[in-house]
């Protein structure tokens, strides 16, 4: 087995994901099969291979504006959609989102 029931529960906790006992059993079996398949990556020698962190390489030039022409200047721009954003929240009181109490004395 690649993954135990306990590990499934630990991962669900890390992901803040509630799972029913049936889901825990189902994912245990399915993740085991998927991880078993993914193990085929171990057949490849990657000792001299750089991991791909960027899909497209940056352009030439040492200056950030030359090498990354897609970046804009870091200037503040107006964004006046706060009311619309708060209106979409399940529980808001301008200018805040309200959540269950986090800090207890």
């Amino acid at each position, binding site marked *: 087995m690649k993954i135990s029931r306990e590990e499934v529960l630990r991962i669900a906790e890390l992901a803040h994901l509630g799972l029913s006992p049936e889901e825990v059993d189902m994912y245990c079996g399915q993740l085991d099969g998927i991880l078993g398949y993914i193990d085929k990556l171990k057949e490849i020698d990657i000792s001299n291979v750089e991991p791909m962190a960027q899909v497209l390489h940056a352009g030439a030039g040492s200056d950030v504006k030359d090498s990354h*022409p897609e970046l804009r200047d870091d200037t503040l721009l107006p964004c006046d959609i706060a009311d619309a954003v708060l209106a979409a929240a*399940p529980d808001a009181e301008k200018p805040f989102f309200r959540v269950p109490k986090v800090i207890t004395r």
Partner: protein
Amino acid sequence: MSAAAPWTVESVRAALLAKKISARELATEFYGRIERRNSELNAYLTLSPERAYAQADRIDLSVARGENLPPLAGVPMAIKDVISTRGVRTTCASKILENYVPAYDATAVERLERAGAVLLGKTNCDEFAMGGSNENSAYGPVHNPVALDRVPGGSSGGSAAAVAAGLAVAALGTDTGGSIRQPASFCGVPGLMPTYGRVSRYGLVAFASSLDKIGPLAENVADAAAIMSVIAGHDENDSTSAAIAVPDYASETRRPVQGLRIGVPEDYFAEGIDAEVKEKVESGIELLERLGCKRIPLHMPHTDFATAVYYVLATAEASSNLARYDGVRYGLRVPGATLTEMYRNTRESGFGAEVKRRIMLGTYVLSSGYYDAYYLRAQSVRTLVARDFAGAFKKADVIVTPTAPTAAFGLGEKIADPLQMYLADIYTVTGSLAGVPGISVPCGKNRTGLPIGMQIFGPHFAEGRVLQVARAFEEAGGFGL
């Protein structure tokens, strides 16, 4: 489908200019078709008639005044429901965003509307674009218009079905591992995945940020090119959009293909491919040879590892991107005694089975103790997959492969076995990982009448060349092989 010739960007424009139909009448015609067909297809989740008719009226006013019409004037289009539309519900086919109404438009949507397109509504898809069959939608699967008991493919199944059934002239889809190309293949329409960074993703609800792309599904290749000319290009709201000039795709698309080198990787015709798919794609390659293209046999040795790489990286990125659905700022909230309990309850109720599966897998491969063995290793093998493409494009101008190993499978056929579903992505995930553009074009049907798709990859930012080969193939009758 109506018996008359399908509407295209060009025929809409001609009809508007000749005053044979108004943009409003055309929108009404399409809403009528949707009214008649959507209950059996389930292609649309939300319609936006107010917005569509307001836009149609603006176009009609321009026509009346004799003004120059923008490139997509009056063209009725559909938008995949993972792309934000201001004031129009955007669910991502998830219960967690059932009532979410964005406060802004995605850049691609804004550009389409500025170019005159009439946006009819939002199309169904797999939840958060995760799936290859559209069966992971919280609002029920889309049915393939060619055969209602078959899947339309996924995740952009609603967009593909809408175009194939004549419920939109064209649609936007998104492609992370094949989600434009595979449904295009299953429904028998062209569908283009652009180069990574070619089209702004501002307003696209993120799934896997190193892989997500927005692209068109259309009636024909010229329409896909026309839409690309509108949506491509740098956007200062998306730092991953490339600051590279956009060519005139329409004129690039009309170039002759004689002398182009067509790379054919043997690795895409090996074990697991359906015999009829192999036969049709082979006929497609022969047609391109008759048009004067030169066939170059290729070997791309890491093809077989791409699916494993993809399901590590895409799920890792998804687990991070979907952390935002916590019941605080938008979407569903299921109460809990503590903040953590509220998160857990919200995510348990709001996400469907496939999304949970991918969050679990992605969290696992990023978790302490497994990061090097899975995530970092997959990133390294991704480099090798990309090198396969870079090497191939030294020998060939485009690469031609099947889009999917089979034609559309049956509804319910694969849903119980996620690994089998993932393995069906084998021919599309490769190009996704390399970040190169790829189009799926129809190349005939199998004996039961189901469409088969042929895929054409090009080098980074060579959408024009990909469209050029696709257009030549289309004009030579390749779609009906």
